[in-house]
């Protein structure tokens, strides 16, 4: 899909944009290559402005940007980049008086497809998102789940390399959410698209994205891969025990396994460097008649990463 030497899809350097006295974007620098990136941040941190910039609706005040190879500083560049970007808005939006297939086909034509191509593509993307017979019905009557899928379909019709998804699971029930997240994850991996997923739901972001950017007051407070940011801190394990727990603490102390914290029948344990696994812990519990009901590596959650990113001091 993308060659190793392909330019990054988004390359923003020291970009600023102000509205009157409000600095919406403040020397923002951001690079996005393939795959899915979660865009997080409190309300008012500049996400909306960044999205408008990525859609070629704004002229930056200063700094440079290259979005899907186009430069938003020029009018022609702004028009051109919209050919390479697909946008799934957060708000409830549709074109009145049309069925889904017409809506997607018309928007495809507006993106530059020929009428026949647009029709074919419209059917393909509607297949992909799972809107079957209902695509011929007036979309004003659609359920929330169908409307969300329609929004995704119209963002895909012109097969853009970059997709902006704003709260893709908004208003969806658990089944709908699951289906949508599967689609988004598929787009970022198997289909090789570059995605920017804006969401307040951190588990959604974890499910679909490999990297995150945390925006704060118009610049990127934190950036990196989720795996790196939520890295294991040392050899810490969280263990949930079952059964009689009284002998456990004594045994753990005896075996030299440090207990960092306790909460009910849950313990955070710190294993020695030499220990590659928890076999000895199992042996210990076996002898004591204590059950181990779950054992997992202690990673910081994305929520902690987010909070940390927000409270970080700015580099001078």
């Amino acid at each position: 899909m993308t060659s190793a030497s392909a330019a990054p899809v988004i390359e923003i350097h020291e970009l600023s944009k102000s509205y009157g006295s409000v600095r919406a974007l403040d020397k923002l620098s951001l690079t996005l290559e393939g795959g899915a990136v979660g865009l997080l941040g409190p309300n008012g941190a500049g996400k909306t402005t960044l999205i408008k910039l990525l859609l070629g609706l704004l002229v930056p005040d200063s700094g440079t940007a290259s979005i899907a190879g186009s430069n938003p500083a020029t009018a022609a560049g702004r028009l051109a980049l919209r050919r390479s970007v697909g946008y799934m808005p957060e708000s409830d939006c549709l074109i009145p008086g049309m069925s889904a297939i017409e809506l997607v086909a018309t928007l495809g034509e507006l993106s530059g497809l020929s009428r026949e191509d647009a029709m074919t593509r419209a059917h393909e993307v509607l297949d992909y998102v799972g809107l079957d017979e209902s695509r011929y019905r007036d979309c004003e009557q659609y359920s929330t789940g169908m409307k969300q899928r329609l929004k995704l379909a119209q963002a895909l019709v012109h097969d853009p390399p970059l997709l902006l998804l704003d709260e893709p699971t908004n208003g969806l029930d658990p089944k709908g959410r699951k289906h949508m997240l599967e689609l988004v994850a598929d787009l970022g991996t198997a289909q090789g698209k570059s995605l920017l997923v804006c969401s307040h739901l951190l588990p959604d972001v974890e499910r679909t994205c490999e990297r995150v950017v945390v925006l704060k007051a118009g610049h990127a407070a934190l950036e990196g891969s989720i795996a790196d940011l939520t890295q294991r801190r040392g050899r810490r394990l969280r263990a949930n025990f079952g059964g009689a727990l009284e002998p456990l603490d004594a045994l753990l102390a005896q075996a030299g396994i440090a207990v960092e914290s306790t909460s009910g029948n849950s313990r955070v344990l710190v294993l020695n460097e030499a220990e590659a696994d928890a076999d000895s812990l199992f042996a210990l519990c076996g002898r004591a008649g204590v059950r181990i009901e779950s054992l997992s590596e202690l990673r910081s959650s994305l929520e902690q990463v987010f909070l940390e990113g927000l409270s970080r001091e700015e580099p001078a």
Partner: protein
Amino acid sequence: MSGALISSQGLSRWYGPVVGVNDLTLEVEGGIVGLLGPNGAGKSTFLKLVAGEIRPSRGTLAVLGFEPFANREYFRVLGFCPQQDALYEDLDAREFVSFLLRLSGFNAKEARARAERALERTGLKDAMLRRTAGFSKGMRQRTKLAAAIAHDPRFLIVDEPLSGLDPLVRSEMIALFQELGREGVHVLISSHVLHEIESVTENILLLHRGRLLAQGPVPEIRKLLSRYPNKVDIRARDARRLARALLELEGTSSVHLAPEGGRLSLETFDLARFHAELPAIAARERAGIQTLESTDAGLDAVFDYLVG
């Protein structure tokens, strides 16, 4: 029957031919309860019935001992935070909440004091004097929430309370619900976001097609779904050897080895036995177990199994 938060018998409500809730018979003890269900399951109808906005077509419903419909006594102890936005744009947040309190019968001074306290609790201390017209979605949510708790209700009903909130505020509001629960306030939270319900409470009410599908703490419900074997994920250095040993364990119905190695997924009908015997097996096989996790014990999996 006595002391239960919600108690209904044959509760039904329909709109012409469309059924909202169909013959619901349930008893909810109290505390913090999550109300879940796919779209069209009857959640909003149930909420409206419990909040006293509509009358049942048939059957009985008692909340805190009251019959909810148009019951002024009941409304005094009920706090309702609906999903829709219904703020008076010209008022500032404090005025709005005070106004609602005065409608409930508080005098001006007490209304203002309560409004300020409630708005502080929902994190709008700095913004309470601003007009709601300029509020973001998250701030509007919090204003509604403040209005619902300002009169110290005994029972709080919230419909999708966390929509539009960024993760920071989300966790603050979840903490608020937990705090209210500790204070003895009953809370009924309706939401589609399962992991948030999970972070607040274990007790759920699951509706589907207007009927009650399940009720109670999630782990207990899981145990009742005995026809679904329990799935466990294990990461181990020598997964294959461990797999062989686990296959011999009574109750194991399948073991699946991940193609990349180092991981196995197990299904067993006897989770208790599995937990009991695993330490001995681990010690014997020395397969290098690193992590162990039940993958279908949570609300997500339970919801899937029940709703399909």
